[in-house]
């Protein structure tokens, strides 16, 4: 086993890392679909954006992640989460449910929190992404990270990076005026350990300026 995993979901149909020939063998039903370079030419004639990708071709995508610009090459079906973890080795962002239900994959895109498991990397072409690794300034933790430590806002820690990314966005969104409101607007981040009361305390502490 090499150390580097493929950048496609492991539960795929197994053809994602195959050769063009492998793919064609398995896709006779698709032969009627335009796959030739002619399709690309036609796209250009129709003023389509330059982003047109066939089934198995990796195409270029530009992402600025935590202030660093990356020129990458991805298959159309690869999610932002998988690019962050598998291509950029930013494994702080976690894959929990991979279906937008748990919030472990929460990152900021142009300052807005989203579930990176439900967003294609190509959709984010040209965007600025912030992950948990991007909150640190040198060796200095973000106040929200400090607060989670101070208030013991986690046990196993698997949901924590998503919780912190959500919490940082929440304060910007202005929905942290009461415990009820914090709980409602943190509801997209599930914690199986049940660290919720301490997470709420951490957020309230940062909001009140206790750690900033």
């Amino acid at each position: 086993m090499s150390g580097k995993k493929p950048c496609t979901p492991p539960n795929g149909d197994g053809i994602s890392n195959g050769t063009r020939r492998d793919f064609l063998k398995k896709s006779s039903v698709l032969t009627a679909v335009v796959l030739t370079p002619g399709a690309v030419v036609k796209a250009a004639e129709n003023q389509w954006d330059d982003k047109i990708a066939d089934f198995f071709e990796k195409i270029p995508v530009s992402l600025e992640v935590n202030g660093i610009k990356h020129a990458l090459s991805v298959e159309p079906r690869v999610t932002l989460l998988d690019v962050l973890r598998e291509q950029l080795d930013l494994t702080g962002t976690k894959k929990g449910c991979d279906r937008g239900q748990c919030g472990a994959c929460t990152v900021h895109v142009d300052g807005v929190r989203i579930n990176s498991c439900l967003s294609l990397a190509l959709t984010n072409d040209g965007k600025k992404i912030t992950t948990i690794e991007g909150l640190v300034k040198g060796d200095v933790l973000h106040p929200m990270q400090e607060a989670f430590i101070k208030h013991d806002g986690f046990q196993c820690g698997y949901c924590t990076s998503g919780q912190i990314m959500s919490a940082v966005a929440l304060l910007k969104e202005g929905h942290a005026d009461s415990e009820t409101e914090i709980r409602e607007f943190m509801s997209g981040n599930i914690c199986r350990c049940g660290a919720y009361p301490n997470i709420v305390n951490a957020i309230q502490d940062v909001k009140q300026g206790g750690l900033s």
Partner: protein
Amino acid sequence: MNQFQYLRPLETAVAIKSLNKDPNTHFLAGGTNLIDMMKMGLVTPHKLVDINRLPLKSIAKINTGLHIGALASNSELAEHSDVKANYPLLSLAINAGASPQLRNMATVGGNLMQRTRCPYFFDTTMPCNKRLPGSGCAAIAGYNRMHALFGASDQCIAVNPSDMNVAMVALDATVHVSGPKGVRAIKFADFHRLPGDHPELDNTLQKDELITSVDLPASAIPFNKHVYYLKIRDRTSYAFALVSAATALHIENNTIVGARLAMGGVAHKPWRLTAAEAFLKGKPVTEDTFKQAAQIAMQGAKAYEYNKFKLKLGANAIVQSLKIASGLVSA
């Protein structure tokens, strides 16, 4: 997830043209429903047309009310100052749905297009007429706790999962769509359809059309002072509705000048309660009035083995939503 061809047009006309009537081509907007379904193998597109760069994001006042671009995010809409001031029911309904992250991604057009959350629709090992027409409905004799009370057929008893749609139908929104034959406007109440013999069709949008905007009329603004969206679910937040009740009342001198009522979680489409609205007009603001309205609203409801509790829950939700909206009780 299957492999697919990816296009990212910059113009609406080009996006529509790229559909090319291929039933296996899909528009991708927020992706919160589509990418999920692709991961589950429910949808296996040949081609995805990523419409996120189309100029359909604006939310702006117009002569007739409010224009909402189809690509405005759910959170942009819920937090918009004009929406909060003039159509607060819409903000309440949107914020009752999904999670903040999902609302940041999900678009208005995509919210209209989201598929049912019937567990048999999502389980590819089970029959489902919506997923595979003619295969049967596993929910009718199955665990149908989340299912419809109104307008179901012997082929499908699934419900529309949206909260936003419930407010939109109550506020008399209009859906604007664009296709090869030009543009057309669809009343929100006519956009989604009942399952009938074609449960695979959730709505009346044609295969080669794109939703471009959802507009709210100025005539709904007088209903902006007494509103509530009561959503009842299995946990406090971040769950689909068992039932929900949207209320917007125009009250003067303790008399109901007009009422807008709709329910979610009870039908294949957002369920406007027109008979109850007509009953409430001219009536005084009393609990007794509201109980009678709820009784009228629930007429014709048909429950299945596991969702009988929704009959009482639905009636009580309407009463409570009316009481909170009118100020008889606080939320």
